[in-house]
Structure formats: C-alpha cells, structure tokens
C-alpha cells in the first residue's frame, strides 16, 4: 500500500523532472545565458513564468538547463561510483585474503572524509568543470559503494547455493558472475537511486559554494548562490531552484523506497 503510494508520487516526479532535463537539451523558452538589461529582476509574469534574474536572464530557461546539467552530472557520477564500487566490492568480498584487507583499510581511510569535503578537495586538484565534478563525486562515493556491496557479498557468500556452485566445480569467476553479482543487483539498484539523489544534492552544494560548474552556466546551486544577494527584493530567485532540488530528491527517495519494498522481500525471502 505504502509502496504503491511511493511509486505513484515518486515516478511521475522523477519522470517530469527528467523530461524537463531532456527537453532543455533541445529547447528552452529563452537562451539560458541570454542577458537582457531592461528585464532585470522581473517578478514572474506571462512572459517569464518564473521571472528573471539580476542579468535579466529567464529563470525558467535556466531552471530547465540546470536540470539537464544536474541530471547529466548525477547520472555519470552514479555510473562511475556504482561500476567502480561494485567491481571492487564483489572482488574483495568474495575472494577475501590480503588484497581485501589492504583495500578495506584504504577504503576506511577514505571514508573518514565527509563525502562533500573529499569531493571538494578533489575538485581543487582537477579544476572546475562538469567532468571534474563527476570524477570528484564519483571518487568520493565509491568507498561507500564498496562497503555496502562488500557487505552484501559477504552475506551472499555464506549462502549454501554459493557453496553448491563450488561443489559443482564452477570457477570463482563464474560463481561471482553467475551467483553473486545477479543477487547483488537489487540492493545495488536501490543504492544507485539514493546515490543519484546525493549526487544531485552534492553537485548543487559544490556549485553553491562556487566550486562546481562555473558561472554563467545555469545550475541550481549557482542560481541559489546568486539569489542570496536579492533575497528581499526577489524571493522567487531562491524559491524555484531550491524547490527543484527538493522535488528531485523527493522523487528519487520515494522511488528508492518503492524499489526497496519491491526488491527486498524477495531478496530476503529467508
């Protein structure tokens, strides 16, 4: 029942925001970076549904463009972190031994840095830009993925069907590919959804701090940072981007909950 509700709200939200990001690739009402001195700080109107900012840029167009930046970055980040983390987690968790111990020690050391801080430090090394954000966030989240996947593998490893696979005469590689990995897919999918939310949030936070995608590129974080100076005179500037981040997180979290409810019972069917 609750799973249904999660899905019914979460899926359309994510679909709508994702759709907006897709549309922005081809079309936005105005150019997201097109300035217009005459139209500075205009309140929402029929021409500019969400108003204009301090350079007279159309907020709706920038929100749409920001959506595609955010989603692109978040998707790539999730891909990097999940791929790297799953590979390392499955291999170390299944094979154990000294490689596992060394990798886990390094992993624990990296986990000692809060994700955003680690990403921030990596951003400093790599310099600003979308690619850097993806690399930084991907690297920052990989240790968490490793830890979670490895935990899952450690418990799967004790299942009798994995022992049965060894008894049949299957190689380690085959057992990992045929019996371990497929049974990790469900928790990894759930993890990927929450990771997507974190990535959107972190990218916005980095941009908000001025360490993300550099202006004038439209990102939700940049827009929020710029809006701070006009909070009293133009409150709409801080409402729209924040609301977009919140709705994205809401949709993704609900979707993740719905997925977990659907995938977990079967996983843990004793």
């Amino acid at each position, binding site marked *: 029942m609750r799973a249904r509700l999660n899905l019914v709200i979460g899926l359309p939200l994510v679909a709508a925001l994702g759709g907006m990001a897709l549309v922005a690739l081809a079309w936005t009402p105005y150019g997201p970076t097109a300035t217009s001195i005459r139209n500075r700080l205009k309140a929402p109107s029929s021409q500019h549904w969400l108003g204009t900012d301090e350079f007279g840029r159309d907020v709706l167009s920038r929100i749409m463009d920001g959506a595609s930046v955010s989603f692109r970055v978040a998707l790539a980040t999730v891909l990097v972190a999940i791929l790297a983390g799953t590979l390392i987690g499955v291999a170390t968790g299944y094979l154990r031994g000294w490689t596992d111990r060394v990798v886990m020690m390094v992993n624990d050391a990296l986990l000692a840095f809060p994700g955003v801080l680690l990403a921030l430090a990596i951003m400093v090394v790599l310099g600003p830009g979308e690619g850097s954000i993806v690399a930084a966030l991907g690297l920052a989240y990989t240790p968490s993925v490793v830890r979670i996947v490895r935990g899952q593998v450690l418990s799967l490893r004790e*299942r*009798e*069907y994995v*022992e*049965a*696979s*060894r*008894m*049949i*005469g*299957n190689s380690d590689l085959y057992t990992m590919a*045929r*019996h371990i990995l*497929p*049974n990790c897919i469900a928790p990894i999918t759930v993890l990927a959804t929450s990771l997507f939310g974190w990535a959107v949030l972190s990218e916005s936070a980095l941009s908000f701090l001025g360490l993300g995608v550099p202006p004038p590129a439209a990102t939700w974080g940049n827009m929020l940072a710029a809006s701070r100076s006009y909070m009293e005179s133009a409150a709409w500037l801080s409402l729209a981007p924040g609301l977009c981040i919140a709705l994205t997180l809401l949709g993704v979290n609900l979707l993740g909950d719905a997925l977990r409810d659907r995938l977990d019972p*079967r*996983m843990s*069917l*004793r």
Partner: protein
Amino acid sequence: MRAPDPLLRVEGLSLATRSGLPIVEDLSFRVDRGAVLAIVGESGSGKTMAARAVIGLLPPGVVRRAGRILLEGAAISEQPEPALRALRGPGLGMVFQEPMVSLNPAMTIGAQMAEGLALHRRLERSAIRARCLDMLRRVGIGEPERCLSAYPHEFSGGMRQRIMLASVMLLEPKLLIADEPTTALDTLTQKDVLDLMVGLARDHGTAILLITHNLGLVARYAADTIVMEKGRLVEAGATRALLSAPREAYTKALVAALPRRTPHPPPAPRGAPMLTVRDFVVTHPGARSLFRRRVPKRAVDGVSLDVHPREIVAVVGGSGSGKTTLGRAILGLVPHEAGTLSFDGADPFATRAARRSFVLQAQMVFQDPYSSLDPRMRVEAIVREPLRHVPELTAGEAARRVEATLDDVGLRGFGRRYPHELSGGQRQRVAIARALVRRPRFVVADEPVSALDMTIQAQVLALFTALQDAYGFACLFISHDLAVVEAIADRIAVMQDGRVVETGHRDDIFDRPRHAYTRALLEAAPRLDLAPSTPVLKPSAA
C-alpha cells in the same frame, strides 16, 4: 453441584489476518489443572497463533474473529488490556521457541528475571534476588550469582532455554504455554529441558499447553493431544489412544510419516571401501586480530571412517559435535589440517586433476532448502548447471537428462519455476536433483530433511532412498535425528566433541549400543512404539 470449571477453556476460537485470510477456525479445547495438553500440527496449522491468542499476544496482523477464552471460568478474552496484563505472568506464562532471540540481549539475566517478580509480587529486593537464585539453581545453572549479572549472549541455546524457563516459572503461572520450546535444541538438551519443564510444572501445580510438531515428544510428555491441520482441529483425545489408533486420515498420515527402521537388515559392506578417512583433523582458525588470538578449536579431532560403494553411512551427534564440519572437509569445502583421505585408493586433493575428478564424482545436499538454491535462477537452470562440466553431453542430451532427473524427484513440469515459487519440500527435491544430475558416486547429505515438516520429511526421505537404490551412490548422511538415521542408514558413526565414539551397523548401534554417549542419545530420542500391547511412552532403549 456443578463440576468445577477447567483451568482453561477455549470455545469456538477463530483467528484471521486483517485481510480476512483464516488462520484458525472454530477451535475448542480445554486444559485441566496440572495437566499437559499437546497441540500437534505442521507449519501452517495455526497451532502457534492459537497459543498466542490464549495469552492475548497476537501479532499485529492477526485478529480474533470469534470465540471465547476462559481461564478458571472467567472470559479473559473479553477483559480489557490492563486486566489481561495482571494475568500474564502469574496466571499465564509462555516459553518461546528460539532461545537465541527470546531474551533481551541488552539486559542482564537478573534484571529480566526480577522485573516480572517486582511487578506482580510485593517483595523486597533481597527476597526477589533470593527467589531468582533459587530458581536458577532449580533449572541447573551452575553459578547462579554470576548468572544474574551476566547477559544472555554468554550462554548457549540450551542454557538460555533453562533461564527462560526459570524466569517464567518464577511467577508460578497456572498455565504454561510452551511453543516448540526445544525445536532449536539438540536431542540431549531437548530431553533435559523438557524433563525440567514438566518437573517444575508438577511441583507448582502448573498446567502445560505444549505446542509441537514432534509426535515423539507428545507421546513422552502429554496425557492428551489435539491435532490441528490448516487451522482446524482434526482429532482430539488421550495421547496413547490417539497415536496408537488414529481415526482421522491426517492423524494416520502423521503417524505413518514417522521414520521407521526398514525390516531387512542392512547388508554387510563388501570389498574395498570407496572412501577412506584416516585421522582427520579440522580446526576452526578463530578470528584473527591484533590483541587476541583465539585458540583454534578442533572441530574434527582425529576421525577415521570408511564408506563402501552403495552404502549409506550416517554420522550422528549433537550440535557442536563436528559432524557437519567433517562432511564439508571430506568434500574439500573446508581444509583439513591433518589426516588422509582416499577416494578409489588415491588422494583426491593431491593434484588439481585429482581434485577436479573428485568434485565431478562427489556432490552435496545442503540442509537449508531456503538458502541452497539461487533465487534468481529457474529450476531447470539450477539442475542443468552441474552439466556444464560434463562436456561429452550434447545440449539435447543435457536437456533430456535434466528433464529425467526432475521426473526422478517428482517435479515434472516445475522446470520453469523460480525457487520462491516452491515449498520447502519441493526446494529440497530440486537440491537433490542438482546433486544427482551428474550421477555422482558419492553424496554428502547434511541434515537434508531436518528443516522440513513431518509428512514432507517422510516423502523426501522415501525419495532419497529410492534414488539411492536406483543410482547406487554411496552416501554420508549427516543428521542429529536418530529416527531418520534409523530409517535410512546402513552403518552409523556416532560423533561427540569432534571424535567418533562408536561405529557400527545400524542394528548394533540401536539395539546394542556400547558407548555411554550413544546410549544417552538413544535414551533422549523421543520415539514411539506403536505396538498396541506396549505402552506408548517408551521408557528407554534396551
């Protein structure tokens, strides 16, 4: 003068899930003061829910639809929660199935025992302590003072069940509800705990409602029995009459499902053994850490054993006896530290090729049918997987082999299903099919039926023996259940603390046990003898 009310009377009890699925339908029974009544049934019979309804602690999803529950004539099912709470403890006590999760891990034993007393009896702290100590001594806890300040995790399952019993009996309940109280324990501990329970109850005049699936226990401890199936009462009556002359088909099936010794004596082993184990030692390393190096535990300590072609050798023993580890070590799933193994006269672990050839000829059937099948694979894929390593089979031959093997285990047409669509018994049949599809010459079966319901257990055992007859594999059959072993084994090795204390032919072990441990096991094993002239309660093995 009317007859006094019985201690407990349940009238027309019906339970259902909130969505309306019936769990118990129109159940009526009574328990007299100081009597022992058993409710017998398989999983899904509703016996546990019926017991929970009596004490008013149904899980959130289950509701009472109809019926009354009367304790000493008072309808407690109609009473408000606070009145019920006053009854729980001194009126109704309950002992649970899983000793590992029925004591609070974050509270000392003393605090958990004391809180019931403090609530229901006005007693000084020192008096509470004295009573707790006294009761712990009664249930055979060695150092009761130390036990009071200890946490549950410091005790074994059997000890925890004693502590649980002590904490419940401390309040001297009029009725003790025991829900499968010893299912999680091994045979010897089971007998100790139940003897203790019945003894304590007799001393305090407590009646017992014993929920169990084990007919042997019923025969030994309960004067009266009711049999439940799918939420309904099937048959009720005096235990002896009910078990020796069951009237209803389901009761007959239950009694018939009890494993029995095959009449013909097992053949003497002929020729050279196929598998020889000599002075086998397996140690559990213990967790390595910087500051504590746990003393390695010898799980298997110098075991020697022979298995001849077409022979079923059973390894029996209590939990921690090392029987499971022995089976795994023989197959190479855990390494052995010392000793020799030979298969067809050669060491199967000497070379890669030898190991490979051994793995192709030896298989294993695991205990837990819920974790031994990959949940993401269809039945036919699971059964076909071992044939990957039989390259001489063409795809068509492999498919036919899979089909034939599924036929063998009675699962024709189940190939497209996933494990979660199967019952426990069906899953175990799949596991057997997977083990046999390559026609192995040697199979280790690790408690293959102990997770199954009685009637299913009988079916799977019958299937297993039939397949063993047909394919002629040799088998190492690991079990804690003497009744199962008696029905299936040719020879038996009894293990205790990692050693084999006695080996012999089945009839010798059962009829002429030599070692004290074997005798204790046999005596503790709940069995019924259904010859009409002899008493149902079998005093002890000859």
